[in-house]
């Protein structure tokens, strides 16, 4: 079926089976591989994106539910030449190690800081609890979000 939506500010139309996962449409049909599959069950958050301004796991969204939606992925947030302040903070504070959870972690941080520009450590922990990282022990990720919040202020 044909699905129309807005992706990183551009209008997009894809033809896909209705139950194809948004994650697969992004990665396979649209070549946006920044969103990762870590678990395929909504547990790890590596595929996190913003769907109609809400953080979601793109592995849990069938494409049929994206008709008319507005989607922001990591590719729409910043570029290597023009980093988003959150990305800059992750770079400076050591928030990324192996990097595979990072796009999802950055999106979850974006969602958190949009709702709460001055989060406490405990609010950051809760805000990012749906994003699993196996490298950092989260300490440097929490530092990164704290730092990004300072930039936002």
């Amino acid at each position, binding site marked *: 079926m044909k699905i129309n939506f807005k992706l990183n500010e551009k209008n997009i139309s894809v033809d896909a089976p209705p*139950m194809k996962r948004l994650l697969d449409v992004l990665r396979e049909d649209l070549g946006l591989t920044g969103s990762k599959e870590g678990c395929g069950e909504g547990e790890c958050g590596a595929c996190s994106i913003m769907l109609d301004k809400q953080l979601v*796991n793109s*592995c849990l969204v069938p494409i049929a*539910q994206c008709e008319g939606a507005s989607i922001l992925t990591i590719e729409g947030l910043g570029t290597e030449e023009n980093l988003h302040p959150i990305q800059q903070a992750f770079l400076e504070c050591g928030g990324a190690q192996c990097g595979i959870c990072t796009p999802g972690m950055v999106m979850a941080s974006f969602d958190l800081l949009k709702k709460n520009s001055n989060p406490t450590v405990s609010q950051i922990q809760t805000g990012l609890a749906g994003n699993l990282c196996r490298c950092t022990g989260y300490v440097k990720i929490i530092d990164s979000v704290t730092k990004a919040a300072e930039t936002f202020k």
Partner: protein
Amino acid sequence: MRGLTPDYEMKTPKNIKEALQILSTNSGEWQLFAGGTDLMVSYEAGKLTHKKFLNINALHELKGFVVNDQEILIGGGCTFTQIKNHPIIQQEFPLLVNSAEATGAIAIQNRATIGGNIANMSPAADTPPVLIAYNADLILLSSKGYRIVNYTQFHKGYKRADLRADEIIMAIKIHRHQGISHSYYRKVGTRAAQSISKVCLAGVACVFRGQNIEWIQIGLGSVAPIPMQAIQTEHFLNEKDLTHENIQQARNILMDEIHPIDDIRSEAKYRKTVAGNLLTEFLESLKK
């Protein structure tokens, strides 16, 4: 990803009327699909045997809240994020905020709906014990009209419930003036977030001067094939004083009343003991 994508159909009705119309001749051919946070997990594991789904996620008729003097109606399509952020719910039904916050993590709460959570009929779901405690009613809508089922009577066995194939969970109705003096919610999961409960207890009570329980209602998760009401325990506790002996006895009754199992996430013995401990913790809190 083990789901065979092309085998699945999904139809999106324009409005509730069209949805009900499709469902009116439905004898299980079409199943409802809301936020998808449970169904997609089965699908990706290659375990979603049903293949035809009616996407009701965008139906605005299921989305809102209605608040009047007597009750609050929560649309079946409301997400846990919407529920935990609702001011009346925050003021009057804190257990719903607790259970919504205990569900998965932010990204799950943004998608998962309360109607879907109920219809999924998992005995380990985080909110059903709260609906039992608050004595919620379900408003079930079909092309023939609506009917109201008290949630404590809804579940009939593992993954079986008083819900016809032509019905949609339109709303959850909770009375606002129940005279609750104390409430309690605790989910014991495998970790602090992103977890499935090993045991969960929600309770509300009306207590006179920190001494006498006028009435009490208790819901539990993960201790039986269905989200269950602790009827015998409630029956024993109603109009009882909060003495050490009564608390002990209530604990024993509860532990007899529930039937947890050993599974991949925990053990029956642990669930039983901890359910007893949670009840004790709840009852002790009634003294304050």
